[in-house]
């Protein structure tokens, strides 16, 4: 055993340490060999554990279906999907993203599921310069005040899909006074805010706003608090909460007395199959419905039903669209995803004339202008569907405003826009 404590060996060790530390970057540089032109590696960030796992599984199904339909090849190149579980935790999402980028050296990322996950990796993605196609995360600021040139959304912002519903409720349904209830987190706040803005702009009044915690055990007390002298209740829920809310809403005898409007996920196809009569009649708006009547969608729904014995909904259609975007952008650049800038340019200038969701056009913020569907839950051939009752074509995330005017306001939240018509 050498004597490490002697001055001489100490000096030696010091020298060794310094040279080792200096050698690190050099070793790194030599190791990072250029990627060979093998398959295209896609990092797929989903949620397999925890409360969001159901949505995560549907995302996985949507992505798998698209790749299956294309024999695992897009633009002539094999697609290799690295699936990573973020557990619905921002810090874990960050680590998973690093794993995808640094270890698997993926060419692009599809995911993550939740808005806070997408926000958690936003800065990193910018630095690492990795293209991200969001199949689900709807956080407004990702394509508004916190822009990321490497980000494209395959869905819509939270409010974008709710602006039309507010107008529809006021103009077509002629509602005057509405109470809202929703999940007490950003998605709930933003969707409700979008609805509130256009509803009030068209002469309606939001007279009550209730927020229930995401993991609330029982909606009884909230339903009990809802005003019953209103024209409708607007419900903004995610996950399985819509199912639980509507059930208790019916149990309290409010169904049939006060109609329910909802955001897209309150009556999402993913949970609609578990619902009964309590959901019938709920009017909602979204960027998709399994009941959209066009040949592409028929094909998609049929294939999805065949494979998974269920209707596609928010998460599965979102991931399917993300794969679709990837496919189109790859085709434009002939599969050469190694040219990241060209790929990103192709992705951000997608102008889709028609698709299973209708036309879509990516705006210069990375968010699609597209058709928003007003849907009504009906029973057809024994199953509940979101029948399309009206379409709003070419809806932008900025609604009818100019981006500049829209972005002058703070981001939608619990307190914006201000609810001026609340009644005691």
């Amino acid at each position, binding site marked *: 055993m050498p004597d490490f404590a002697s001055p001489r060996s100490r000096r030696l060790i010091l020298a060794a340490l310094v040279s080792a*530390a200096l050698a*690190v970057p050099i070793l790194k540089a030599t190791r990072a060999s250029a990627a060979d032109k093998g398959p295209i590696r896609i990092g797929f960030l989903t949620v397999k554990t925890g409360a969001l796992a159901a949505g995560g599984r549907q995302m996985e199904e949507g992505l798998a279906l698209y790749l299956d339909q294309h024999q695992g090849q897009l633009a002539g190149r094999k697609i290799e999907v690295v699936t990573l*579980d973020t557990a619905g935790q*921002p810090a874990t999402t960050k680590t998973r993203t690093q794993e995808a980028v*640094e*270890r698997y050296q993926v060419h692009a990322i599809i995911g993550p599921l939740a808005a806070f996950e997408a926000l958690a990796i936003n800065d990193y993605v910018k630095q690492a310069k990795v293209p991200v196609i969001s199949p689900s995360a709807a956080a407004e*600021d990702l394509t508004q005040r916190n822009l990321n040139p490497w980000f494209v959304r395959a869905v819509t912002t939270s409010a974008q899909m709710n602006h039309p519903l507010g107008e529809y409720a006021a103009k077509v349904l002629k509602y005057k006074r509405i109470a809202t209830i929703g999940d007490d987190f950003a998605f709930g706040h933003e969707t409700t805010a979008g609805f509130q803005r256009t509803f009030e702009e068209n002469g309606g009044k939001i007279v009550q706003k209730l927020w229930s915690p995401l993991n609330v055990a029982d909606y009884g007390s909230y339903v009990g608090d809802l005003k019953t002298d209103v024209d409708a209740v607007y419900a903004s829920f995610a996950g399985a909460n819509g199912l639980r809310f509507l059930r208790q809403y019916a149990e309290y005898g409010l169904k049939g007395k006060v109609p329910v409007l909802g955001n897209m996920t309150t009556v999402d196809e993913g949970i609609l199959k578990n619902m009964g009569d309590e959901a019938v009649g709920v009017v909602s708006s979204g960027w998709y419905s399994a009941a959209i009547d066009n040949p592409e969608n028929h094909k998609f729904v049929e294939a999805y039903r065949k494979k998974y014995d269920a209707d596609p909904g928010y998460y599965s259609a979102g991931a399917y669209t993300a794969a679709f975007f990837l496919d189109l952008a790859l085709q434009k650049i002939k599969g050469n995803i190694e040219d990241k800038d060209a790929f990103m340019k192709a992705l951000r200038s997608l102008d889709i004339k028609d698709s299973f969701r209708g036309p879509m056009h990516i705006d210069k913020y990375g968010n699609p202008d597209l058709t928003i569907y007003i849907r009504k839950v009906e029973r057809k051939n024994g199953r509940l569907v979101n029948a399309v009752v009206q379409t709003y074509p070419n809806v932008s995330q900025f609604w009818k405003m100019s981006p500049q005017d829209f972005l002058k306001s703070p981001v939608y939240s619990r*307190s914006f826009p201000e609810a001026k018509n609340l009644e005691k």
Partner: protein
Amino acid sequence: MKRAAVYAAVAALLVVPAFLPFDYYVNIASQILIAGIFAGSLNLLVGYGGLISLGHAGYLGASAYVLAWLSTRAGFSHLWASLGAVTLTTLMAAVFGVLSLRATGLGFVMITLALAQILWGVAYRWVSLTGGDNGLSGFGRPQPFGIDLSSATAFYLFVLVFFAISFLFVSVFVRSTFGAGLQGTRDQPRRMQALGWDVWSTRFVTFVVSGFWAAVAGVLYADYNQFVSPHVLALTNSAEVLLMVIAGGAGTLLGPIVGAAVVVLLKNVVSAYVTRWVLLLGLVFVAIVLYMPEGLVPGIERLRRRTVRTGTRA
């Protein structure tokens, strides 16, 4: 011999990045070091003070939030935001210490838990201040002396400096005259009082010091993630760091670091191969509790001693 071990450890830690095949693993190593500082800070309370806190994420999170807020909303430079974060969080720890140390045992656990839950609630609800569950982002990594820390290796070495200081501090702290008294208050608080020790102040000082190092970990956590959201303040985070301490060996210097490594590796590396990694994490902890209730470091030491003894006998 002991000195040799220290030199060897320092050397190993310095060259770790060179031997890890991807930046990803270097980043995992940085995470382990940050978690190690964090768990080490909690160990002062739990292991040496006998005070089980179930709200330690509060200090990590508060510090990360203050850093994020000061640098994105108040225009502070990264350095001043970091100093501000550590200072304010340490002051907060002093206030929380006064509140929590009114009780010991289960009462203490409950108060620390409740205080951390309040912080979580503030982060979640006070949207105009904290961004709600969308969190705060848009602050980069620091650039000490103009050194760019965006590379995984540079950041690792940056964290390593703080890790080394914190480890040195904790080693001296628990072996100091004050540390001896702290351990005395853990074992026989009444007797310590009869020996002239101010038990409350001893605990209080430890509480604040623990909060200080958790705040340092919080700054590094924020630097690493470049993002904070209410999740960082969640009960699961407080429970996780407590698990690190207990699984690794409370009241030992290396225990929390080993615990941090086990948790971070299980969470991040093993999960790539095992879908039900949460279950695995649970099983590992159950196994530790069953077979090494004192924690991994003391447990392995015990086994080693036993084999050495049987070895010499043979």
